[in-house]
């Protein structure tokens, strides 16, 4: 028998069977719709989280690493980090001299300080002491005014470059440039406003829009460095040169800090890579659990389909008997029921996908940037189809194996 003919006939029977029980079909598909929406939203959310995370750390830069006293992600005992020697401004100068021509070193130091303009106060603002090299190393630029100059650093000028968020909150409607801003107990003159970065403060990432940059020399004079460690941002000429430079810097910093060869490093190299790696391993588990739980809802939907397919087979026992008596082979009956369950599930998958698009748009609008990617849509439909085949298989096999005599006698 020609396969195409069997397929068309079976597809026709399957469709008319679904259409004959529209409400039942819709309710059965609902289970699949919910399952698909849950799974797709989980995947979309995971994607969105990762993108947001990446974006919120994008100011870190891919060709930059940081030499700090402590790693960003601490593993093992807290005490091994606690007694380390502080990282100081001298270290920054020494390192810059040693790797001159290979990389640019920019020291930064930060503290939370309340900030005040007129009578408006803003708390938990991160005040960052840095140098003019910041604009080169971190690839940030000003929206208004200018960044600090080498002179500002050298002469410990009381100048500040503020984040876009600070401008919105403290200088709403007024021009911030050349206005006075009080940071802690010292007055600064605003010389620039940074470009908005967005996506800040997500998952503990830095909210660069809520930062104020002042010359590191001014910072030291005003707030001291004893309790605060200088971070050394090192920028490589290219992303490819990053690893080589990293080894070189490790060696140089060991020498600067006077470590003997047998001693372990008493400082940490922090990179976007290590941050992303740590994020991925953590989020991987979370997403896996999420998919497992949402997968259960899809599984329950599949069980619902299987249940209805058993009902459908029982209801149509006599029809199966007639078809077998007049010569329907097993595969034709099998196909008829497999197609019926597949149609229900794929229809559920398509509707679920459409609902997911709406849910994703809502997430994108209210929670975080998110988008439904083509691979996710494809996987969702494939999963729906597989669910359909699997939940239809046992009922379809039951139907195919029916004895025509018993089936014809069935009332």
């Amino acid at each position, binding site marked *: *028998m*020609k396969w195409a*003919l*069997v397929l068309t*006939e079976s597809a026709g029977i399957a469709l*008319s069977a679904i259409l*004959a029980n529209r409400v039942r079909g819709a309710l059965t598909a609902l289970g699949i719709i919910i399952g698909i929406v849950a799974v797709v939203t989980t995947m979309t959310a995971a994607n969105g989280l990762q993108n947001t995370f990446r974006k919120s750390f994008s100011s870190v830069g891919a060709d930059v690493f940081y030499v700090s006293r402590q790693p960003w992600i601490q593993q093992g005992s807290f005490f091994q980090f606690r007694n380390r020697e502080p990282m100081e401004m001298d270290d920054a100068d020494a390192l810059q001299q040693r790797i001159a021509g290979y990389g640019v070193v920019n020291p930064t130091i930060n503290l939370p300080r309340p900030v005040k303009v007129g009578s408006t106060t803003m708390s938990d603002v991160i005040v960052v002491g840095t140098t003019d090299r910041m604009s080169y190393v971190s690839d940030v630029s000003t929206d208004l005014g200018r960044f600090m100059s080498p002179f500002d650093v050298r002469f410990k000028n009381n100048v500040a470059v503020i984040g876009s968020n600070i401008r919105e909150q403290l200088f709403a409607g007024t021009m911030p440039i050349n206005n006075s801003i009080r940071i802690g107990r010292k007055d600064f003159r605003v010389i620039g406003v940074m470009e908005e970065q967005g996506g800040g403060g997500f998952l503990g990432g830095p909210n660069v829009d809520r930062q104020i940059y002042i010359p590191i020399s001014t910072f030291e004079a005003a707030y001291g460095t004893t309790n605060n460690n200088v971070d050394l941002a090192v920028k490589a000429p290219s992303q490819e040169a990053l690893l080589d430079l990293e080894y070189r810097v490790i060696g140089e910093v060991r020498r600067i800090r006077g470590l003997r060869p047998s001693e372990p490093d008493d400082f940490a190299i922090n990179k976007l890579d290590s941050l992303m790696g740590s994020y991925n391993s953590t989020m991987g588990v979370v997403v896996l659990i999420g998919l497992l739980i949402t997968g259960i809802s899809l599984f329950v939907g599949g069980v619902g389909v299987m249940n209805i397919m058993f009902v459908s087979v029982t209801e149509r026992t*006599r*029809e199966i*008997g*007639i*078809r*077998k*008596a*007049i*010569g*329907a*082979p*097993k*595969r*034709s009956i099998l196909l008829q029921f497999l197609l019926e369950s597949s149609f229900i599930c794929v229809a559920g998958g398509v509707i679920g996908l459409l609902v997911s698009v709406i849910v994703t748009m809502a997430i994108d609008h209210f929670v975080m940037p998110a988008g439904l990617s083509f691979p996710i849509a494809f996987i969702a439909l494939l999963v729906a189809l597989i669910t359909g085949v699997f939940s239809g298989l046992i009922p379809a096999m039951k139907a195919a194996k029916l004895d*025509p*005599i018993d089936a*014809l006698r069935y009332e």
Partner: protein
Amino acid sequence: MTDAPTNAKSGQPALSLRDVVKTYVMGDQELRALRGVSLDVYSNEYIAIMGPSGSGKSTLMNVIGCLDTPTSGSYLLEGQPVERMTDDELAAIRNRRIGFVFQTFNLIARANIWHNVELPLIYAGIDKNERRARALHALERVGLGDRLDHRPNELSGGQRQRVAIARALVTEPSIILADEPTGNLDSVTGDEILTMFDELHAAGQTIVLVTHEDDVAAHAHRTIRLRDGQIESDTVVDPALAPDRISP
């Protein structure tokens, strides 16, 4: 017990059963529905199988119709042994060689009668245009060529049975197996159906009919009576209807 008919056509029988035994196991009991039935049916014979309930006539019908296989014994359908065939091979044999007419019509309710009649041709792998033409021809033969789009529940019992006959005829089967075809019909409609069988027989069709009514059996030229799973008698009722007496 009388002798087997002497007026049967010579040559190979259309179907030939030898010592067919069918045993059902129900729990720890063995039910012997057929206890050694031997029977030859020649082309263009019109045979009635009769017997009280429990005599094994339904089982014999199922075996002849290839819906069931004998426990032992042999069954040749047009020279082909079917007793060891797989389910799908049996399905193919039913599809091509046997036309069923049931007491309860057994049409597919959701499909129109055209589709009901073309259904066996779909399983035979016939392409659409030929299917349509042959289904139309079969429906015209039973006088329903103008009702193609009706569904079975829009037709009377007699009309439904005629659709079933059209479905049985459409594959041009070796035999038509009719199981109490008038059992669910009033006597006038029943007579119409039986007249139709007479016409088919006159046109050369081999028919095996199962009934418990004598006046239905009277339409056949040969009557086989079963009792307790064995052939009790095999009689030529009306030699005038025997196949070799019919002018072509």
